[in-house]
């Protein structure tokens, strides 16, 4: 195996809130290999967006605070070196966000933005004079060349009437179009690594499909690596090589796309997978309960209060380490402590679950995502935006 292009080690992020310190990311490790697409999957508020923001260097600090962890991009540590992070972000990363409206400047035309991207490609140390000249509308790069390149890109993203689009403001475009433009913009910078934070969530289902197709087409074509954040396993299946399942700021399970979907090991993953048939939206019926309170996270395994297979006296005491199984699969559940086979573990889990269900507790409660957010509401507006 070659060196990973991106590696995140033991990330811990805390948020200062009125209730105290929220331990939002609690020891997350993540690697993305060259040319690989990795998806982080988890429900709202599980910390996947915070992870992505940390990688992108846009974690709001305060209230957020990176307590621990290292981020390597091509073996260069970034969390301790803001300049390097900035440089990598500028030179190598491309970003695609959930809300295409806020991801494009609302006050400039698509063409203006694209031209600026092209003008300053690989330029560092731009002086004030240049800034001023730009603001009054002067550029050194040939307008015609830029125009052609824009058209080409927009064309590639199957945008009708690319000529016309250039003179439009984002507000004049539909959501799908905006997202295409956004992808085009990200591609313009010729990145090696894309970070996509729920880029299709805000779109209609049919449009989602198209965008996903377009995105994977671009990734394949340019041989990019990508970190893809989603709460939707179905989406992850379509685009990712590997999947990280995240729960309450911790990695619950890691595995290849097929492994996770075919044979989820972690009880949480299983719950997620059970809800997959409804591709369109995340169905919470699969797992009962809510994301826990981050300021006073449950002891032991953070999932144990919701876990159908929780073993009293174990799961609520011991924090499960990640057990490495075969083929790069990892799972953080005490069930796998003794190298238990997945099948056996499943059985135990099923029994536990039955017993618990008998006591009949949590069915039919109308707990929407809003309420779950209640406890971490003050983390950041951003998190909410990303998860709505």
């Amino acid at each position, binding site marked *: 195996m070659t060196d990973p292009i991106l590696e995140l080690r033991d990330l811990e992020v805390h948020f200062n809130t*009125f*209730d105290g310190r929220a331990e939002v990311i609690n020891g997350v490790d993540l690697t993305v290999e060259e040319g690989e697409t990795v998806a982080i999957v988890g429900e709202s508020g599980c910390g996947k967006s915070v992870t992505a923001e940390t990688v992108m260097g846009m974690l709001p600090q305060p209230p957020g605070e990176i307590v621990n962890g290292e981020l390597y991009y091509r073996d260069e540590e970034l969390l301790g070196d803001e300049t390097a992070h900035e440089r990598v972000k500028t030179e190598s990363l491309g970003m695609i966000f959930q809300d295409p409206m806020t991801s494009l400047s609302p006050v400039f035309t698509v063409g203006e933005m694209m031209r600026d991207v092209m003008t300053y490609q690989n330029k560092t140390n731009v002086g004030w004079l240049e800034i001023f000249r730009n603001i009054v509308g002067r550029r050194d790069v040939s307008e015609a060349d830029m125009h052609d390149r824009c058209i080409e890109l927009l064309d590639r993203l199957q945008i009708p009437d690319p000529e016309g689009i250039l003179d439009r403001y984002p507000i004049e475009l539909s959501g799908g179009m905006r997202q295409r433009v956004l992808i085009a913009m990200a591609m313009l910078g010729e990145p090696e690594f894309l970070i996509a934070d729920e880029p299709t969530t805000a779109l209609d289902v049919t449009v989602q499909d198209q965008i996903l197709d377009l995105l994977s087409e671009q990734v394949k074509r340019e041989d990019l690596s990508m970190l893809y954040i989603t709460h939707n396993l179905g989406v992850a299946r379509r685009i990712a090589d590997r999947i990280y399942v995240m729960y309450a700021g911790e990695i619950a399970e890691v595995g290849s796309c097929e492994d996770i979907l075919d044979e989820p090991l972690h009880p949480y993953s299983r719950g997620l997978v059970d809800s997959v048939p409804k591709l369109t939206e995340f169905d919470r019926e699969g797992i009962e*309960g809510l994301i826990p*309170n981050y300021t006073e996270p449950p002891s032991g395994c953070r999932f144990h209060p919701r876990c159908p297979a929780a073993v009293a006296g174990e799961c609520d005491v011991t924090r499960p380490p990640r057990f490495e199984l075969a083929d790069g699969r990892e799972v953080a559940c005490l069930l796998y402590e003794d190298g238990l086979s997945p099948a056996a573990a499943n059985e135990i889990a099923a029994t536990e679950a039955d017993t*618990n269900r008998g*006591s009949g*507790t*949590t069915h039919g409660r109308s707990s929407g995502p809003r309420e779950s957010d209640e406890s971490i509401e003050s983390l950041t507006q951003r998190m909410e935006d990303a998860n709505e």
Partner: protein
Amino acid sequence: MSSLTNWVQSEAMENRKESARRIAYRFRQNPLSLVGLGIIGGLVFVAIFAPYIARHPQDAGYMGEPAVDFANRFAEPSLAHPFGTDQAGRDILSRVIFGTRYSLALGLFVLTFAIGIGVPVGLVAGYVGGFVGQALMRLTDVFLSVPPLVLALAVAVPLQPSLRNAMIAIAVVWWPWYARLVYGEVVSVREEQFVEASRGIGASRLRIIFREILPNVMAPITVKFSLDMGYAILIGAGLGFLGLGAQPPTPEWGTMIAEGRAYLPAQWWYSTFPGLAIFLAVLGFNLLGDGLRDVLDVEVD
């Protein structure tokens, strides 16, 4: 297992306590708003206990026992008269202390009146909508098309100049701001689902207004109230300064500054100290209001 349910339920029940805690927390995070609160607390204290704090309450006309001593005019600030004396030999500090009463009273009256008129108007306009709503809001547009000081001047002219009439004039031009604020909130809240829902189950309009809409506009009104207290005091002082507010010998701050101007620059203290008092009071309300704005997370204006 069941603990989770309980947790959620108690969470919901404690929502109110929760949000109070949250507010208190955020408020504590903002030292400037604490300073503001401190200033205002001080002002209120001074206003209430003015007769006991001021060394020469009769110089401020307290208990109708005026005392002038023209022979002691324009004493410079000293231990006996920390803010000096004015042209009638009165202790300026005592007068500034009593002035607190007038400015706070003015602010309170103006805002009580403005909210009393503005909120119902905004509610009606926003909730009823249609022609009535449009007409009401156009009316507020008209009021808002002139700066409050100028309109208050125009309203104050037909009335005799006095503190009471200044209050009325300012209040008359102030309510549209609240009507506008409430109207905006109502329109956005009106469309929100929970109102739709309560309408669906046959909630009366009044009930919707009082149970759903009013609580929603409380936060912005609270913030605006605090910010406006300062602003109303400023406008009141401005009217006093122009001679259309409180009349001498009322120890109203703006009026005192105007009187003192005739004796600048030699008797610099005459205008300076009442102005300082206005500045402090307005600063206090602004700091508090700004803190509240952060805490309650609302944008006004």
